[in-house]
Each structure stands twice: as C-alpha cells, then as structure tokens.
C-alpha cells in the first residue's frame, strides 16, 4: 500500500534494520508509526518519560526494569534503531532460517532472549544475579502481598535450586540451565500481525 513506502522513506537505515532484526518492511513501518505516536513532543527520540506515559506499562510491577532495558547504556535518548533492535528480541524464533557458520546469532535467538531476561534480574550488570537482586525482583512482583520472611525463603530456595557452583549467586549459565525445559520462544515472543 502507498502508506508503507512513504513511511519507510522516513526511516534512516531501513534496509540495514530489516536485515539485522528480521522485521518485514511492513512491520518496520508500523513500528515507526508507533515510535512517533509515543514521541508526543516530537523530539525525534524517546525518553523514559514517554514510556512511563503508557498506562498499561505503568501498572506492570517490573515496569522500571523494562524501561531500564531499553535505556541500558545509561543514556536518556532512545532513537528508532535502538528501539527496534530491542523489540527484535521478541520476534518469534525463525526455525527455518539457515544458520551460516560464522554469522552472529539473530537478535531473537533463544540465547539472546534469555540474555534479555537475565539483564532484567541483574541490575548492576556484574554477570550474576545475587540474592539481593533476586529479592528486589520478588519485592517488585509481590510488594505488600507477602511478608519479608516469605520473600526471603522464596529467594533462598530459588538460589539453592539453581546455584550449581555454590557461590550464592546465579550466573548466566546457571540461569540458562534452570530454564532448559521452558519454552522460551512461546513465553518471550510477541506475534506481530501481517
């Protein structure tokens, strides 16, 4: 349709993005429209406040962490390419994509989805989920509904089960192992229409 091509012409490196992320041009155009809709002050980039203005996101218990994942390098301006690259994590895994020997994993591979989820837990980016970080997530998800003791016992039990090298923290490998049987593709994918 006429509208897709005109929107695409507004995106600076559309072809590159399509290659990298695996989105179709139609998806990219729709995401660009969404980007512009979220950018209410027409700054050309998104700030954390633009995300906080999304009502449904504001009621998500881990909304701060999700917003943090978009602004991970500490900067306060999110341009369209970065926006799309992060959303690409949530594309369903392409099973029929031929794996070239030396090419990097696609953004939406199982490993990369797991890495994305890992960083939601690991806020100080030291490569491990400490007991404290786990407690923080639990607190965010449960807040006043359970007592502090219950939270601590849940955290202790989780670390006990997943922590294989007994260093009282969960590394990415241990995280990945504990989720071996979970259908990550289903849980961490969004079905884009068209």
């Amino acid at each position, binding site marked *: *349709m*006429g*509208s897709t091509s*005109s929107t695409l012409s507004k995106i600076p490196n559309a072809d590159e993005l399509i290659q990298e992320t695996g989105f179709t041009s139609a*998806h990219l155009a*729709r*995401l660009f429209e*969404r980007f512009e*809709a*979220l950018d209410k002050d027409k700054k050309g980039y998104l700030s954390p406040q633009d*995300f906080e203005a*999304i*009502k*449904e*996101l*504001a*009621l*998500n*218990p*881990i*909304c701060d962490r*999700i917003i943090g994942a978009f602004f991970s390098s500490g900067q306060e301006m999110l341009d369209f390419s970065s926006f799309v690259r992060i*959303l690409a994590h*949530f594309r369903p895994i392409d099973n029929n994509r031929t794996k070239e020997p030396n090419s990097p994993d696609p953004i939406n591979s199982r490993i990369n989805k797991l890495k*994305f*989820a890992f960083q*939601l*837990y690991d806020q100080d980016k030291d490569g491990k989920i400490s007991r404290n970080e786990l407690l923080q*997530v*639990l607190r965010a*998800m*449960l*807040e*006043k*509904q*359970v007592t502090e003791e*219950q939270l601590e016992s*849940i955290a202790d*039990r*989780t670390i006990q*089960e*997943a922590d294989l090298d007994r260093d009282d923290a*969960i590394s990415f490998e241990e*995280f990945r192992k*504990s*989720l*071996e*049987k*979970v*259908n*990550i593709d289903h*849980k*961490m*994918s*969004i*079905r*884009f*229409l*068209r």
Partner: protein
Amino acid sequence: MFLFDNLLCMLLGISFTVWFTLLLVFIIVPAVFGVSFGILSVYICTCLLFLTVLLSPSGIIAKELASLEQEMQEMRRSGSGSALGGAEFEMSDIFHFCRRGVESIVDDEVTKRFTAEELESWNLLTRSNYNFNHISTRLTVLWGLGVLIRYGILLPLRVTLAFTGVGLLVFLTSLIGLLPNGGMKSFLSEKAHLMCYRICVRALTAIITYHDSENKPKNGGICVANHTSPIDVIILSSDGCYAMVGQVHGGLMGVIQRAMVKACPHIWFERSEVKDRHLVAKRLSDHVADKTKLPILIFPEGTCINNTSVMMFKKGSFEIGCTVYPVAIKYDPRFGDAFWNSSKFGMVNYLLHMMSSWAIVCSVWYLPPMSREEGEDAVQFANRVKAAIARKGGLADLLWDGGLKRDKVKEVFKEEQQKLYSKVLVGGAEDRSRS
C-alpha cells in the same frame, strides 16, 4: 442601476422565502408532530452504496489473552517442575510480566480508546483518513464532490435548522415559564422541549432507532447512559423529557440554561458547588424524591469516550439509592464520527464537523431498570450497570477510568497485579503445606 438592485433584492427575497417554506414543510412541521417522510431513509441507502472502499489495518500485534493464572499453570507443567508439583516461584515467572510490558509498549489499549475508532473502510471524510495518502484520482474526485455537497448544501441547511431549533427553545420555554406551576405547564413544557429537540435532531441529520421503549425512564429515577458526545443529550431528549444536570455556563449556553429551567426544573450547579460532593448528592436526591419531577439524565463516565467501549462509571450517581434506568447509545461510525475529543477540538469546531458529516446514525437501547441490591456497594452497582450497558450496545467493557485521558494510573491497579501474582504463588504454597 436602480432597477437592477431592486430586481436583485426581490430575487433574494423570493429565494429566501422559498427556501424557508421548503424547510418548514419538509422538516420543521413534521418535527413538530414527530412524523417523518421517507426521504431520510433513501438518503441513507444512497450513502451506504458509496461507502465501500479499501480496508485499513487495525492492530499491530496479536495480544496474548491468557490470564496470569493460566500462564503460570502452563509454565509449571512444561517447566523444570519440582517434585512437589505446587506453584512455586520460578525464574521464568518474570517472562510473563516482561512480555506483557513489551506488548503494551508496542500497542496499548488505552491510547487507542481515546483516538477515534479506526475505520474498516473509509467513508470519504478526511478526518477519518489516517493511513491513506493518494490512492486514486477517481477517489479524490469523489471526495471533492462529497466536500461540495456537504459544505455547500448540507451545512447551511443544518445551520439554519439549528438556529431555528435553539431559538424556538429559548422563546417557548420563556413563554411557558410565565404560566403558573401545574399540569398545564408540565404538559406544554414537555411538548415544547420535544418539538425543539426534534428540530435539533433534524439539524444534525441524526437518524435514531429506539429499542425497547417500554423501559423508558420514569419520574423519580435516574437515567444513566454512556457518553460519546454532547449530542447524546439531544438524542435522548428528543424521545423523552429529562431533567438535565450540569454546570452553569455563561454566554449563549447560559441563556439556554436559564430559559429551560423556567419551564421545568433542571439542575444547574454553580462552579463552586460542583466540588462539594455532598451538596451535589443532596440536590440530586431531593430531586429524585419528588415524584412529579422528571427523571435525571446523567453520564457517569465523566468524559466523552470514543464509542468503542464503556469506561469506569463514577460512583456518585449510584450512591443516591433510587432506581437506575440504564441506556446504551451506539453510533454507526460509517456515517460520521460522533466522538468529541475535548482535548483536541473545541465545541464550535466539533459542531461544524458534526454538521458537515453525511449523517449521524445511532441506536438507543433502553435497558430494564436496576436498583442496588442488598450488600452491594456503590462501586459494584456501578460496575453491574456498566456491564449491562456495554453488553447491550456491543461495546467493550473496560476497567479503565475515563479520567485516564488526562491523569496517571492509580497505585491501586499496580497492587491488583501484585495481588494476583501472589495468590498464584502463596496459594500454591499453602496447598503444599497442608498435604
């Protein structure tokens, strides 16, 4: 020269008289008697014939509709299930919240509700054209023709009618106000109000279908309806007499309000009184208690919603404790978008839009009366009424507050999410400890 001027004046005079007579015969007189010719139905059919154009896409993503509990259970079954089989915290639980969060970043419900409904096909009104740029010359020509007809013929006609209707309303109600209170006054006031509203309805070319008129609101009750535009008032009032509730305005609106209240008791509040909830509640209950007074018309959503859903009802009107008559109003979006986005357009702009649309087609359903039951508080009652209205009108029943158009999410909603999650976890733990 002189002769020419004279001729011109005569011509103008004649055409004006002809114009007005036509108007009178075909529109005003039938409006007075509540009768109508078939002209409008023919018009609508022709319109429908033209309104089959291209499709426009709707949402970006297909959202996961499973609730938190269902997802958790699925994860437990397929995940690194513990021997105890109960619900425990798993590292993967965060996926659910994460995905939901990103889904709402890509596409969220609330922002959609407040922009005018995306149409499946385009109805030749530019204001509903979001995704189309230049499609074809044929379409552009058709559109141009549409503009000519709408602004050149329909708009002046409707504006004349509107002025007549409003003017007549003010005039007649002031006259009737001079009469002493009594049966005659109420009778005449009813007739006058109905007549003027019918003229206004014609001024908007609104074609309204009333369903279930046996449930029409009676005296001593409150009529509650979903709100899409200020026209809702006109639509409902042309089929029955209501006492209006509202703030006292200045200017033309104020003149109309003062005139109306002379003929029959409406409830107008001063700006200062609006803040005092007890005062408002008291005046409403006093009005309701008097059985000779007309049913009150209230729109509990508090703001105009874009007619695809019903938002949370404010509980004030449901605390009064009398019979509530719910009414559902649904506009057909093909003919004209009746939604008033008050943060975007002013009143005059909006009215201009309305009067230059093809027509306004809507359906009104009168639902059977409801009262507050034992042990039900005002909020639950309000939600019950809201669900009934949403169901009847084919609108989505949303938990969201109409105030979200402007304000932020209340903390209590975040707590709801946390409560749900904790129930799944802690509930499971309790089961385990028992077994």
